[in-house]
């Protein structure tokens, strides 16, 4: 919207340079996307450094989910370039498959595979994609189940777990692939209030390990806790982008102020 926005990422980066590595892991340059003739993403520029934790928020339909779904090419962008971990996303299917092994993603609904046990859900990727021996894959899976605090559920089926547990398994499933980046698409918005905390706790722990994370969420307390940067989107534009303290206490754009006043 405003011309100053394009300057924002660089400024923010300089402030945070001490905390995170200077290695760029995601680079979006003038990305545009249309659903038929509806313009969802408009000239998006975004640079994410290794180890950075970014929270994306905004009203529904603002394009925030589409933005992160473009990063692992679940959605195709029509103009601009997306470079993830040094690889440009284009029509090359090999590249896309490779990117997807490096980028984990957790959805609003867990998308666990209901016909497989929890352990099988977790070992499927390592065994079939990473060609890991079964025993090793199972050991890794159990390690991550331990980390999301449900080691005892390994032999159950997804249908037998609560929503919060399913979401934690989904996080563990992504981690089993040993990804460099984790994307979260409103991971708690379909959960009962009682279960939100258990999922957020796991995500906070993950953030503490230095994982690069992009999180679409409406959990503003969570954003304050872990985010290095908060991005606010509206109608396909990145309207405001700032470090969390500034963003919440001193929002610049009128649209941001309105949004924050409605959800806080």
């Amino acid at each position, binding site marked *: 919207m405003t011309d100053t926005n394009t300057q924002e990422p660089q400024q923010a980066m300089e402030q945070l340079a001490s905390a995170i590595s200077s290695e760029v892991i995601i680079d979006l340059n003038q990305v545009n996307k249309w659903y038929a003739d509806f313009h969802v993403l408009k000239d998006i520029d975004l640079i994410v450094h290794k180890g950075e934790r970014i929270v994306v928020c905004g009203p529904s339909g603002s394009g925030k989910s589409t933005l992160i779904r473009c990063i692992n090419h679940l959605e195709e962008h029509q103009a601009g370039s997306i470079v993830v971990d040094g690889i440009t996303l284009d029509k090359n299917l090999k590249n896309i498959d490779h990117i997807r092994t490096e980028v984990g*993603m957790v959805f609003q609904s867990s998308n666990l595979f209901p016909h497989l046990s929890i352990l099988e859900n977790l070992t499927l990727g390592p065994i079939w994609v990473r060609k890991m021996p079964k025993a090793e894959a199972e050991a890794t899976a159990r390690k991550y189940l331990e980390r999301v605090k449900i080691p005892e559920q390994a032999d159950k089926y997804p249908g037998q777990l609560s929503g919060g547990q399913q979401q934690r398994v989904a996080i563990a499933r992504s981690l089993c692939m040993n990804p460099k980046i984790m994307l979260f698409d409103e991971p708690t918005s379909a959960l009962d209030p009682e279960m939100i905390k258990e999922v957020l706790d796991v995500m906070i722990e993950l953030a503490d390990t230095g994982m690069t994370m992009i999180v679409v969420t409406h959990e503003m307390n969570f954003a304050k806790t872990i985010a290095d940067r908060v991005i606010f989107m509206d109608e396909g534009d990145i309207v405001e982008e700032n470090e969390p303290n500034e963003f919440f206490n001193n929002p610049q754009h009128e649209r941001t102020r309105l949004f924050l006043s409605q959800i806080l």
Partner: protein
Amino acid sequence: MAIVKTEKTPAREAPLSETTIIGWMSKNLFGSVFNSILTVVTLYIIYLTVRDVWVWGVADAVWVADNRRECFKISIDGACWAGVITWMDNIFYGRYPREELWRINLGAILLFVWMVPLWLPRVKAKVLIGVTTVFLYPFLAGYLFAGGDKGIFMQVMISAAIVCLIGNTLHSIIGVLTGSSLPEFLIRLLGRQDAPEKSQHKILFGILAVSLVVVYLWQMGWHAEGVSWTKWGGLFLTLVISGIGIASALPGGIILALGRRSRLPVIRVLSTAFIELFRSVPLITVLFMATTMFPLFMPEGVVLNKLVQVIIAVCLFNACYMAETVRAGLQAIPKGQAEGAHTIGLGYWGTMGLIIMPQALKHMIPNIVGSFIGLLKDTTLVSIIGLFDILGMLRSISRDTPWLGLHKEPLIFGAILFFLICFAMSKYSRHLEVKLSTGHKK
């Protein structure tokens, strides 16, 4: 005023009407006066029907007689089963040479032996066993049934089938007894379990190659008398046609359904056109077309026999129907499943084969078995184009001089046979459904 419950309400026993048979009856059969009248009238109608059928079909029926006239002499009102019994061999085997019937029976037994491991507990690699049933058994059975000269290709396939059958059987015996698979057992037998995986594979391949060569040499001396397809008939022919149809409909349907959902326009349009073409034409038309049109497309000199033409037609027709069933199943799987699979790096085939297809097939079991039952019954149409399948055989009884005009009994017998087969299939599908639904059960 605040209400605070201090004690838990204990669970009490359900009222008798919910747990006993008498309670159930008084609730469901005699709940009101009108309900009671309906129950009594219905029971009376059922009684009348069953009594008449019993008197005609069993009490007054004739079981032994030389011809229809004799039947009438013994009992004018009863069924004349004697005709059906005399023709029994024809109904089951058609005009297959009587001294060669063991080949058909052996084929059936081999199929049973091949499939039994699928139902045994502790046996590993069941999918592989199922796949070999579809791709190798037909060659062995085909040669058993048709006989004649074997080409090199047939010899290789027959040897592979025999090796596979022996391997299957050993594998399942070992599986049931020890819970391990045949390769694991062989490696342990040779004391090579500590050897690296590569050299283990070499040993297994060696064993496989040697047994293939041995069986190949053995089967060279084995020769079965040729039996022309014109002699095939009866239930045997019906099962051959529908068996091949069933075995090929599912793989064919899956390929066509994936083709129809493909992102590549050429494949999509071709699959759609193929499916719609066959679906919009009745099977009987396809059968007529097959027997009259196929020869026109064939290069000169190639003569396909009528049975092969019919089987190809049945396969294509049913693959197209199956394609639509499979497509419906694929569409019922939420998009998130594919996205979940993509995010852990699975490509198209991995996603389809490991995530989407297993779930879709599970949902589709009732529809798939429904199509199979329909297929089995539809094959009776081949009697119209001159093949003596079971229906053709049943109807020719009434044209046999001693049993001239005997229509009712053979057709009723045929109906009972079909019912038994179809009901068994439908029961088995129900059983499969329950068994495979564990993934969703709470």
